[in-house]
């Protein structure tokens, strides 16, 4: 073995790295909020518009926060899984409706006054839940997406698992599949509820 074989060794290390890389997803962005307290918010509840809800109201319970919107196609894909979940599991599922009107893209927001946006958002959210089922204990309305930014939302749907002391324990980006539910979420819930 002369010293030129070092080059070959370096190449082997590179190939190993690339092979590992093939199994990873470069677009997946892990959340820095895992292990930190869930950011506070105080948003209006869909069913009872003059009441508000925030993470402080859920203290002492393990709960799930699911970010959704009626214009989001993937949300429709995961929705049956959530409905099933809400029927079988005794963990509260809170919905965070994200930019119901603004996120749609079909509306010229410069022409829409705030109360009209509010009315329209509540109307659309209610209709969607009526059409597809309501797995949520309740839904809160994040009209302008500010709470979404605080939670690092970048691609709807997203789901957070929050423990009894209000700390985010897991964030899942993308639709919830039965596999993810079974392999990742249920074991975590079991552990947190001990």
């Amino acid at each position, binding site marked *: 073995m002369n010293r030129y074989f070092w080059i070959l060794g370096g190449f082997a290390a590179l190939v190993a790295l*690339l092979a590992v890389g093939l199994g*990873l997803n*470069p677009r997946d962005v892990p959340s820095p909020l895992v292990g930190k307290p869930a950011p506070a918010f105080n948003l209006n509840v869909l069913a009872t518009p003059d009441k508000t809800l925030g993470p402080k109201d859920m203290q002492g319970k393990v709960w799930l926060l699911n970010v959704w919107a009626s214009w989001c196609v993937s949300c429709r894909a995961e929705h049956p899984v959530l409905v099933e979940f809400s029927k079988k599991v005794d963990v509260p599922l809170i919905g965070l409706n994200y930019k119901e009107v603004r996120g749609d893209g079909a509306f010229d927001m410069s022409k829409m006054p705030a109360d009209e946006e509010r009315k329209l958002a509540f109307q659309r959210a209610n209709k969607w839940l009526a059409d597809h089922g309501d797995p949520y204990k309740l839904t809160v309305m994040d009209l302008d997406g500010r709470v979404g930014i605080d939670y690092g939302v970048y691609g709807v749907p997203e789901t957070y698992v929050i423990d009894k002391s209000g700390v985010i324990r897991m964030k899942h980006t993308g639709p919830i599949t039965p596999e993810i539910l079974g392999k990742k979420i249920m074991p975590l819930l079991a552990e947190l509820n001990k």
Partner: protein
Amino acid sequence: MTEKRGSFKNWTVLLAISAFSLSLLGTFLVRSGVLTSVHAFATDPRRGIFILIFLVAVIGSSLALFAWRAPKVGLGGRFGLISRESLLLTNNVLLAVACATVLLGTLYPLLIDALGVGKISVGPPYFNAVFVPVMTPLLFLMGVGPFARWKEASIPEIIRTVRWAFLAALVVAIALPLIYGQWSALTALGLLLAGWIIFTAGLNFAQRVQHTRGQQSFLAAALKQPRSFFGMHVAHIGIAVFVIGVTMVSSFQDEKDVKMEAGETVSVAGYSFTFNGVKAVEGPNYVAAQGDFDLAVNGKFQRKMNPEKRNYHSSQMPMTEASIDAGLLRDVYVSLGEPIDRDKPEGAWAVRVYYKPFVDWIWGGCVLMALGGLLAILDRRYRAKSRAAAPIEATVGSQQA
């Protein structure tokens, strides 16, 4: 150098293997989905596996063959620790380091992700920051190199020759940014290195002509120089031009993003754009909203500029066509954004205007580099036929360039 002096056979072979290997690596990186990149398209991990296997087969066997046979290749010519050969080797090392730097920045996010210690991203700010310390010594040596003799070079002699070029470059580096309005160390560094290369190239050329002219006129002797000698200097000057372009654009570019009604004017770097409204035009396969702008400098009208927002019949996405006024010392351009009120395209629009000084010098520099390379290849001493016919001329010639 391998051809003329028989040195560095191993290194030349290794460089050739690396060049092809890196292009294969590039293919892998953009098609396998391993990296997020503007260059990545149609990514598919299964295709990635195939390319990876191909990579291993081709590069692995080349490197293995190289490792096996390289020690058997002879040493080649001899030269001193400070000589043109060693300077060329240093140039090679620095370019290889620059290449390795880019590779490092590209693969690092993948490394961090694979090790599971986090998720970072590396973008232009990183590459711009680390490239400067690596390229600076390279650019500096580029001015020194042509003065170093083959086999044995003398540093004091070189210093004595080039110090005036250095001073001239220093003057330019200090004065030019001030003329353009803002002095910064980075701008001055770029101009210093570019000026250094240009002045030393001119000096080296003039010196060579002076030494070899004998009784001829300066011009006649200048034109008789070997093509590869011209090529070297043209290429080096091309690099200097490129550096000037990059430095000036990044230091002095300006843009404005404003909303404009018909009749309003916006200025950037002394160029004023007066908006005269937007009208609908039809092209062969598109419909467009065409803006009408008057470009003026110091109040004097220069020309009309007509940027367009096109909707091609075949696609949903509107395409923006900027209107560019290209010039030797700067490009200015204007592009249309969106109408402020979607339903009133005859009203106000969001408009962006740009001023980019010396940006075409980036392209010009590359053209010069290519031209220099072409001249070097066309040197008669590399022609097999003339080499066979004039062995004596070849030996004499190889002493010079």
